[in-house]
């Protein structure tokens, strides 16, 4: 496997979406190609860091206010108009 082929399969590899044969070829490549090993390892860390980062969490007080506003507008939407029977 060449480095460019490895790169094409990187996303499938990290997502566990490769068949056994391709996975084994890719891991053979990683065993001797240090650059690809580093790219693979640091890409995996990139995903994990973002997944664990908790950027943009919704504070509980704001969350409560938004939910109240949503539910209040929902019940308004549902109310029949004055001309409806």
């Amino acid at each position, binding site marked *: 496997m060449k480095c460019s082929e490895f*790169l*094409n399969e*990187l*996303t*499938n*590899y*990290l*997502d*566990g*979406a490769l068949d056994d044969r391709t996975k084994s070829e890719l*891991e053979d490549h*990683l065993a001797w190609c240090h*650059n690809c090993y*580093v*790219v*693979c*390892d*640091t*890409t*995996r*860390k*990139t*995903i*994990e*860091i*973002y*997944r*664990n*980062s908790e*950027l*943009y*969490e*919704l504070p509980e007080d*704001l*969350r409560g206010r*938004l*939910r109240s*506003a*949503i*539910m209040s*507008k*929902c*019940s308004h*939407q*549902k109310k029949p108009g004055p001309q409806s029977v």
Partner: protein
Amino acid sequence: MSAIQPNVREPISDELALVRAAKQGDDKAFEELVRRYDRNVFRIAQHITQNREDAEDVVQDAFLKAYGNLAQFQEQSKFYTWLVRIAVNEALMKLRRRRPERMVSLDEDVKTEDDSLPREVADWSPNPEQMYKQGELREILTRTIQGLPPGFRTVFVLRDVEGLSTEETAQALELSIPAVKSRLLRARLQLRERLSRYFQKRVSGDGASRDGTSGDDDQ
């Protein structure tokens, strides 16, 4: 090296029961759906709009739109995927309003493959998250992901931060599966490359050298 494990969400059958109850007029059931997904919608919206007030509006507008159109939800996809689709569209509209000079769409910013090819291949410190204080780390991560084009950023957030499958991401963004995979690869590689500036081993002289560890333990 193990595969990344997807985020686990609530069982779909439970979700479907809530959706059906909400369709019958049970507002408590709809409120439970809001409670279940409001944090996700807020994160997605803020990642796309990069503006907190807009993200708050998107949360309200997306749930209200979902509520108003619940009868049209055909149950062929998960409710959450359908909701994300509504939220992404609302968030993109906000972004367009803020940046009228640029037409923002998920189809733009598709550049040549070379953009994302790794140029700098430096190994990272063993625990990159610990190289910086919490606030600094958040700043780095926020600035780095905001630097991605909206089309790449959105795919990365749905797939890797929110844990949607490739198929769900494709449905939510109305993209083909190969388009999602291609953007995801490029988003991941671009983020990796940009974060390498902060996280690589034995960086010195730019304030990023807080890593006091020896840096000798490869792997």
